[in-house]
Protein backbone atom coordinates (compact mmCIF):
# COMPACT_ATOMS: atom_id res chain seq x y z
CA UNK A 1 0.00 0.00 0.00
CA UNK A 2 2.85 2.30 0.97
CA UNK A 3 4.75 1.57 -2.25
CA UNK A 4 1.64 1.75 -4.47
CA UNK A 5 0.74 5.14 -3.01
CA UNK A 6 4.28 6.44 -3.65
CA UNK A 7 3.96 5.23 -7.26
CA UNK A 8 0.63 7.02 -7.70
CA UNK A 9 1.90 10.23 -6.07
CA UNK A 10 4.95 10.11 -8.35
CA UNK A 11 2.58 9.71 -11.30
CA UNK A 12 0.57 12.80 -10.30
CA UNK A 13 3.84 14.74 -9.92
CA UNK A 14 5.14 13.53 -13.31
CA UNK A 15 1.89 14.30 -15.10
CA UNK A 16 1.86 17.77 -13.54
CA UNK A 17 5.42 18.41 -14.69
CA UNK A 18 4.68 17.16 -18.23
CA UNK A 19 1.53 19.20 -18.86
CA UNK A 20 2.88 22.29 -17.10
CA UNK A 21 5.81 22.64 -19.53
CA UNK A 22 8.55 22.06 -16.93
CA UNK A 23 9.71 18.97 -18.88
CA UNK A 24 10.41 21.13 -21.95
CA UNK A 25 13.89 22.75 -21.84
CA UNK A 26 12.93 25.27 -24.55
CA UNK A 27 10.02 26.54 -22.44
CA UNK A 28 12.07 26.67 -19.24
CA UNK A 29 14.89 28.62 -20.89
CA UNK A 30 12.37 30.98 -22.50
CA UNK A 31 10.92 31.74 -19.07
CA UNK A 32 14.29 33.16 -18.07
CA UNK A 33 14.92 34.81 -21.45
CA UNK A 34 13.15 38.06 -20.64
CA UNK A 35 15.46 39.85 -23.10
CA UNK A 36 14.54 37.44 -25.92
CA UNK A 37 11.73 34.95 -26.61
CA UNK A 38 10.10 35.35 -23.18
CA UNK A 39 7.39 32.83 -22.19
CA UNK A 40 5.96 33.67 -18.74
CA UNK A 41 4.11 30.31 -18.40
CA UNK A 42 6.40 28.99 -15.66
CA UNK A 43 5.27 31.64 -13.22
CA UNK A 44 1.89 29.86 -13.36
CA UNK A 45 3.52 26.47 -12.72
CA UNK A 46 5.49 27.64 -9.71
CA UNK A 47 2.68 29.88 -8.46
CA UNK A 48 0.08 27.11 -8.80
CA UNK A 49 2.29 24.53 -7.14
CA UNK A 50 3.37 26.87 -4.35
CA UNK A 51 -0.11 28.15 -3.42
CA UNK A 52 -1.62 24.64 -3.56
CA UNK A 53 1.17 23.17 -1.42
CA UNK A 54 1.13 26.04 1.10
CA UNK A 55 -2.62 25.61 1.69
CA UNK A 56 -2.43 21.80 1.68
CA UNK A 57 0.52 21.62 4.11
CA UNK A 58 -1.34 23.95 6.49
CA UNK A 59 -4.36 21.63 6.46
CA UNK A 60 -2.25 18.46 6.81
CA UNK A 61 -0.11 19.77 9.70
CA UNK A 62 -3.17 21.32 11.35
CA UNK A 63 -5.37 18.24 11.26
CA UNK A 64 -3.09 15.18 11.33
CA UNK A 65 -0.58 14.56 14.10
CA UNK A 66 1.40 12.10 11.96
CA UNK A 67 1.48 10.86 8.37
CA UNK A 68 -0.54 7.77 7.46
CA UNK A 69 2.40 5.50 6.56
CA UNK A 70 5.15 6.91 8.82
CA UNK A 71 5.77 7.67 12.50
CA UNK A 72 6.62 11.34 12.00
CA UNK A 73 6.88 14.08 9.40
CA UNK A 74 10.48 14.21 8.10
CA UNK A 75 11.03 17.96 7.90
CA UNK A 76 14.30 19.87 7.65
CA UNK A 77 14.82 21.79 10.89
CA UNK A 78 17.79 24.00 9.99
CA UNK A 79 17.15 27.71 9.62
CA UNK A 80 20.74 29.03 9.30
CA UNK A 81 21.99 30.35 5.97
CA UNK A 82 25.42 28.98 5.11
CA UNK A 83 27.82 29.20 2.18
CA UNK A 84 27.03 25.63 1.18
CA UNK A 85 23.32 26.39 0.70
CA UNK A 86 23.92 29.58 -1.25
CA UNK A 87 26.90 28.32 -3.26
CA UNK A 88 25.17 25.06 -4.18
CA UNK A 89 21.97 26.85 -5.17
CA UNK A 90 23.92 29.38 -7.25
CA UNK A 91 25.70 26.52 -9.01
CA UNK A 92 22.41 24.69 -9.62
CA UNK A 93 21.06 27.80 -11.38
CA UNK A 94 24.05 27.85 -13.74
CA UNK A 95 23.36 24.25 -14.76
CA UNK A 96 19.60 24.86 -15.01
CA UNK A 97 20.19 27.87 -17.25
CA UNK A 98 22.64 25.95 -19.47
CA UNK A 99 20.41 22.91 -19.99
CA UNK A 100 16.84 24.03 -19.27
CA UNK A 101 16.42 21.03 -16.96
CA UNK A 102 16.03 20.91 -13.20
CA UNK A 103 15.82 17.47 -11.47
CA UNK A 104 12.02 17.63 -11.12
CA UNK A 105 11.66 18.50 -14.79
CA UNK A 106 14.15 15.98 -16.13
CA UNK A 107 12.96 12.77 -14.41
CA UNK A 108 9.37 12.95 -15.78
CA UNK A 109 10.83 14.02 -19.17
CA UNK A 110 12.47 10.56 -19.32
CA UNK A 111 8.97 9.25 -20.06
CA UNK A 112 8.77 11.29 -23.27
CA UNK A 113 11.36 9.07 -24.99
CA UNK A 114 13.54 11.96 -26.17
CA UNK A 115 17.25 11.00 -26.46
CA UNK A 116 18.57 14.24 -24.89
CA UNK A 117 16.89 13.47 -21.55
CA UNK A 118 18.89 10.39 -20.45
CA UNK A 119 22.09 12.26 -21.40
CA UNK A 120 21.17 14.99 -18.92
CA UNK A 121 19.92 12.59 -16.22
CA UNK A 122 23.08 10.44 -16.31
CA UNK A 123 25.27 13.57 -16.05
CA UNK A 124 23.11 14.86 -13.19
CA UNK A 125 23.28 11.52 -11.32
CA UNK A 126 27.06 11.57 -11.75
CA UNK A 127 27.11 15.11 -10.32
CA UNK A 128 25.10 14.07 -7.25
CA UNK A 129 27.35 11.04 -6.59
CA UNK A 130 30.48 13.16 -7.14
CA UNK A 131 29.30 15.90 -4.77
CA UNK A 132 28.27 13.38 -2.11
CA UNK A 133 31.61 11.57 -2.29
CA UNK A 134 33.55 14.85 -2.11
CA UNK A 135 31.48 16.25 0.78
CA UNK A 136 31.75 12.98 2.74
CA UNK A 137 35.53 13.01 2.29
CA UNK A 138 35.70 16.63 3.50
CA UNK A 139 33.47 15.97 6.52
CA UNK A 140 35.18 12.71 7.49
CA UNK A 141 38.69 14.17 7.54
CA UNK A 142 38.51 16.41 10.63
CA UNK A 143 36.46 13.78 12.50
CA UNK A 144 39.07 11.06 12.00
CA UNK A 145 42.05 13.33 12.68
Amino acid at each position, binding site marked *: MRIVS*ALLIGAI*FGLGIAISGMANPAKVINFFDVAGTWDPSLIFVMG*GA*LVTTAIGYRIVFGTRARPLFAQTYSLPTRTDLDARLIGG*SALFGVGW*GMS*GFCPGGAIPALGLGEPAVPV*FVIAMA*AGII*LARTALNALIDKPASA
Partner: protein
Amino acid sequence: MATEFTPFMSLFGGFLIGVAAIALMALHGRIAGMTGILAGVLPPVGSDWQWRAAFLAGAVIAPALYLVFGGTVPFAVPVPVWAMVVGGLIVGIGVHVGSGCTSGHGVCGMARLSPRSIVATITFMITTGITVYVMRHVLSVGAA
Protein backbone atom coordinates in the same frame (compact mmCIF):
# COMPACT_ATOMS: atom_id res chain seq x y z
CA MET B 1 13.00 29.47 -30.49
CA ALA B 2 9.64 30.76 -29.27
CA THR B 3 7.29 28.62 -27.16
CA GLU B 4 3.54 29.06 -26.77
CA PHE B 5 2.30 30.90 -23.65
CA THR B 6 0.18 28.29 -21.80
CA PRO B 7 -1.17 29.88 -18.60
CA PHE B 8 -4.04 27.41 -18.03
CA MET B 9 -2.12 24.17 -18.70
CA SER B 10 0.81 25.49 -16.67
CA LEU B 11 -1.44 26.47 -13.77
CA PHE B 12 -3.18 23.07 -13.84
CA GLY B 13 0.20 21.29 -14.03
CA GLY B 14 1.41 23.34 -11.09
CA PHE B 15 -1.75 22.42 -9.16
CA LEU B 16 -1.04 18.70 -9.77
CA ILE B 17 2.56 19.15 -8.56
CA GLY B 18 1.08 20.71 -5.42
CA VAL B 19 -1.40 17.85 -4.97
CA ALA B 20 1.48 15.36 -5.20
CA ALA B 21 3.51 17.36 -2.65
CA ILE B 22 0.55 17.43 -0.22
CA ALA B 23 -0.14 13.70 -0.66
CA LEU B 24 3.51 12.75 -0.12
CA MET B 25 3.51 14.75 3.12
CA ALA B 26 0.13 13.50 4.37
CA LEU B 27 0.80 9.83 3.60
CA HIS B 28 4.60 9.45 3.83
CA GLY B 29 5.63 12.53 5.82
CA ARG B 30 8.12 13.46 3.13
CA ILE B 31 9.10 16.59 1.22
CA ALA B 32 8.45 16.14 -2.52
CA GLY B 33 11.95 17.24 -3.47
CA MET B 34 13.32 15.49 -6.54
CA THR B 35 16.93 16.00 -5.39
CA GLY B 36 16.46 14.14 -2.12
CA ILE B 37 14.24 11.44 -3.58
CA LEU B 38 16.71 10.77 -6.41
CA ALA B 39 19.81 10.90 -4.19
CA GLY B 40 18.32 8.11 -2.03
CA VAL B 41 18.32 5.62 -4.92
CA LEU B 42 21.81 6.48 -6.19
CA PRO B 43 24.78 4.50 -4.82
CA PRO B 44 25.36 4.16 -1.94
CA VAL B 45 21.64 3.38 -1.86
CA GLY B 46 19.79 4.41 1.31
CA SER B 47 17.78 1.95 3.41
CA ASP B 48 14.40 3.45 2.44
CA TRP B 49 14.88 3.26 -1.31
CA GLN B 50 11.60 1.44 -2.03
CA TRP B 51 9.14 4.36 -1.79
CA ARG B 52 11.66 6.60 -3.58
CA ALA B 53 12.02 4.14 -6.49
CA ALA B 54 8.23 3.83 -6.68
CA PHE B 55 7.80 7.64 -6.76
CA LEU B 56 10.44 7.96 -9.50
CA ALA B 57 8.88 5.14 -11.54
CA GLY B 58 5.47 6.80 -11.30
CA ALA B 59 6.96 10.15 -12.34
CA VAL B 60 8.48 8.59 -15.48
CA ILE B 61 5.54 6.34 -16.41
CA ALA B 62 2.81 9.00 -16.14
CA PRO B 63 4.08 11.26 -18.98
CA ALA B 64 4.65 8.15 -21.15
CA LEU B 65 1.06 7.01 -20.54
CA TYR B 66 -0.18 10.54 -21.21
CA LEU B 67 1.47 10.36 -24.65
CA VAL B 68 0.07 6.85 -25.27
CA PHE B 69 -3.46 8.06 -24.52
CA GLY B 70 -3.21 10.87 -27.04
CA GLY B 71 -1.83 13.72 -24.94
CA THR B 72 0.79 16.01 -26.44
CA VAL B 73 3.82 17.35 -24.60
CA PRO B 74 5.74 20.00 -26.55
CA PHE B 75 9.47 19.28 -26.27
CA ALA B 76 12.52 20.97 -27.76
CA VAL B 77 16.15 21.20 -26.72
CA PRO B 78 17.43 24.64 -27.73
CA VAL B 79 21.04 23.93 -26.67
CA PRO B 80 23.82 21.64 -27.95
CA VAL B 81 24.54 18.24 -26.38
CA TRP B 82 27.62 19.52 -24.51
CA ALA B 83 25.36 21.95 -22.63
CA MET B 84 23.18 19.00 -21.55
CA VAL B 85 26.21 17.07 -20.29
CA VAL B 86 27.96 19.99 -18.55
CA GLY B 87 24.62 21.43 -17.36
CA GLY B 88 23.58 18.05 -15.96
CA LEU B 89 26.82 17.63 -14.07
CA ILE B 90 26.59 21.15 -12.62
CA VAL B 91 22.91 20.66 -11.67
CA GLY B 92 23.78 17.40 -9.88
CA ILE B 93 26.62 18.97 -7.90
CA GLY B 94 24.64 22.14 -7.18
CA VAL B 95 21.44 20.52 -5.94
CA HIS B 96 23.33 18.11 -3.69
CA VAL B 97 25.57 20.80 -2.20
CA GLY B 98 22.61 23.21 -1.89
CA SER B 99 20.33 20.48 -0.42
CA GLY B 100 17.51 20.93 -2.92
CA CYS B 101 16.13 22.12 -6.22
CA THR B 102 13.03 23.72 -7.71
CA SER B 103 10.68 21.12 -6.19
CA GLY B 104 12.28 20.77 -2.75
CA HIS B 105 13.25 24.39 -2.08
CA GLY B 106 11.08 26.23 -4.63
CA VAL B 107 7.78 24.50 -3.92
CA CYS B 108 7.87 22.51 -0.66
CA GLY B 109 10.36 24.65 1.29
CA MET B 110 8.82 27.94 0.15
CA ALA B 111 5.36 26.58 1.07
CA ARG B 112 6.68 26.02 4.63
CA LEU B 113 8.20 29.52 4.59
CA SER B 114 11.62 27.99 5.31
CA PRO B 115 14.19 30.83 5.29
CA ARG B 116 16.81 28.49 3.78
CA SER B 117 14.50 27.53 0.92
CA ILE B 118 13.49 31.13 0.25
CA VAL B 119 17.15 32.18 0.01
CA ALA B 120 18.04 29.11 -2.09
CA THR B 121 15.17 29.77 -4.51
CA ILE B 122 16.00 33.46 -4.94
CA THR B 123 19.66 32.50 -5.47
CA PHE B 124 19.09 29.89 -8.18
CA MET B 125 16.44 31.98 -9.97
CA ILE B 126 19.00 34.82 -10.24
CA THR B 127 21.89 32.63 -11.43
CA THR B 128 19.63 30.79 -13.90
CA GLY B 129 18.53 34.13 -15.36
CA ILE B 130 22.12 35.35 -15.64
CA THR B 131 23.23 32.05 -17.23
CA VAL B 132 20.41 32.12 -19.82
CA TYR B 133 21.28 35.73 -20.68
CA VAL B 134 24.98 34.93 -21.09
CA MET B 135 24.35 31.73 -23.08
CA ARG B 136 21.80 33.35 -25.40
CA HIS B 137 22.87 36.97 -25.78
CA VAL B 138 26.59 37.02 -24.99
CA LEU B 139 27.89 33.64 -26.19
CA SER B 140 25.02 33.08 -28.70
CA VAL B 141 24.86 29.36 -27.92
CA GLY B 142 21.91 27.77 -29.72
CA ALA B 143 20.76 24.37 -30.92
CA ALA B 144 23.14 22.75 -33.36
